[in-house]
């Protein structure tokens, strides 16, 4: 039996927007096993990204218990949480979020800057990550010199460079055409199968979700029935 890498129990999240207090997540219970490729689907405003942010440790739950890789991340201080993120989570966003004036290799190196790795070690890790995403020959290019798909691959390399346990992807193909999207999904599948990374991906795209090993649907902050699917 595979142990749960991510465990959520009774997770509640509320936001204050102006004078309104909005409850986004209503007592989410969820377990995600190590090595899973999970697709989170649901309509806009259903709480998908909020749930992803909580699991990735860039937001905090108001209630409930959240364990990731054995760490109760809700109990960590801001500094401990930053350190935890650096070692355990890789992030991929819809709009890539690369530093425009840094080259691909400098962008990929960012998560390693807060580690104690030597320059040589950092260089080796960056090279390996860029090779994995097939962009070793574009290492010195800046984001503006790369296509959308290439930029997203650089973002994936940045997410993987610190060898995290968990990859959280928020609409990673949302800004790409079908062909590019398929390439990115291929890459995520390779990372999941060959690098054994656990991936949680938020998507609106049913075709993208089909690549996952499990799909979950959220609606109005509640999980609907879980449905397993085999990767294509």
């Amino acid at each position, binding site marked *: 039996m595979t142990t749960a890498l991510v465990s959520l129990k009774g997770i509640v999240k509320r936001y204050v927007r102006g004078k309104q207090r909005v409850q986004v997540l209503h007592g989410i219970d969820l377990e995600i096993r190590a090595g899973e490729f999970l697709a989170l689907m649901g309509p806009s405003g259903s709480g998908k990204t909020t749930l992803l942010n909580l699991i990735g440790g860039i937001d905090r739950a108001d209630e409930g218990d959240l364990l990731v890789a054995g760490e109760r991340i809700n109990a960590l201080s801001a500094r401990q949480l*930053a350190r935890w993120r650096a070692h355990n989570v890789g992030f991929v966003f819809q709009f890539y979020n690369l530093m425009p004036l840094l080259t691909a290799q400098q962008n990929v190196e960012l*998560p390693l800057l807060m580690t104690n790795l030597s320059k040589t070690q950092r260089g080796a890790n960056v090279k390996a990550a860029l090779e994995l995403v097939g962009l070793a020959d574009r290492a010195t290019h800046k984001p503006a010199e790369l296509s959308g798909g290439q930029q997203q691959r650089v973002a994936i390399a940045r997410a993987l460079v610190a060898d995290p346990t968990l990859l959280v992807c928020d609409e990673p193909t949302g800004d790409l055409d079908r062909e590019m999207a398929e390439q990115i999904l291929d890459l995520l599948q390779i990372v999941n199968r060959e690098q054994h990374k656990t991936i949680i991906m938020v998507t609106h795209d049913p075709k993208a979700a089909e690549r996952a090993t499990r799909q979950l649907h959220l609606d109005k902050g509640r999980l609907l029935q879980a449905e397993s699917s085999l990767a294509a």
Partner: protein
Amino acid sequence: MKFLPLLWSSLWRKKARTIFTVLSIVIAFLLFGLLQGINAWMSAFGTGSNANRLYVVSRVSQVQPLPNAYLHQIDAVPGIKQSTYIAGFTGFYQEKSNTLVGFATDVKAWFDLYPEWQIAPEQLAAMSRNRAGAIVAAPLMRAFRWKIGDRIPLRTSVMKRDGSADWDFEIVGIYDVPSTQAEANRILVNYAYFDEARLLERGTAWAFVVAVDDPTRSAQICAAVDALFVNSAYETVTQDEKAYVQGQLRQLGDVSLMANAIVAAVLFTLLFLTGNTMMQSVRERTPELAILKTVGFSDRAVTVLVLIESVLLCVLAASLGLAAAAAVFPVTAALGIGGSALPIKVVAVGLAMALILALASGLPPAWRAQRLVIVDALAGR
């Protein structure tokens, strides 16, 4: 060093804005370097002065003439070894830009009183034989390509009895003061000739220079000299050389106060300019800073990065400004209003000011970066 590409890319995100900010800081610190350099030079002016020399001037003002007859009374004060008078003129040779200062004095006594002024004995002797003779500073001789025996016509501020302000002198000697260039733009002429020929203020002097036997008794001698003329029409102030020189500089106004006021106004303006630039820069980079936090940079690390960015901007630009001031300083020295090199103390104070400016202007954006909430920043809120 590993953060340098990140810092550098942040600085150059908006090239034009950074260039203009850098230029503002460079110009501000160029101004700072020049003004404070001149200030420091003026403060230090006279530090190499001769402790044996005292100056007697009018209590009213250093430019108020005193009667010549005072010299005999001053000579009689115990402890005074030698004395002479100084009168003179300002003027120019051929072009108004060729300004000169002429001292009319007892030239032989002058060279006794100022042993650091060097002249060949035969040239000094020639001066006593030629009433309209002049001894000229070596740099002036070189600048105007004069030679001994030349007659030099000077347009001056002093009217002659014939109604003309043009004076002719014959060069009979050359002096040099290796220890300071500031005194190398003068012409010495015979007081007797000058006083007899001038129309106004005859029988007066700007000041009396006095040599004392024992510099440790200067204070008593100053008091004794001034006591001679208390309640007279021309009361005096006697002071040592350093105080006298600095008093002359004060005739220009409180240069130090003006320089400090200008520098303070410039730096205060710069604080807002740099602060605004940093604030804009951080505001524009909100999503990028959020990404840094997302990938593991702590709040503190992001704060420090923004502060270092501010320090880099200010200190590098200030260094350029101070370097420019150091390059320009010898030029001001050539004009007679500065030392030959920018004092190291001014450079150190300038860099400290740049650091304070960087921290003061960098703190608000750094604070903003620290408080940035990742999910809000990524969502563009």
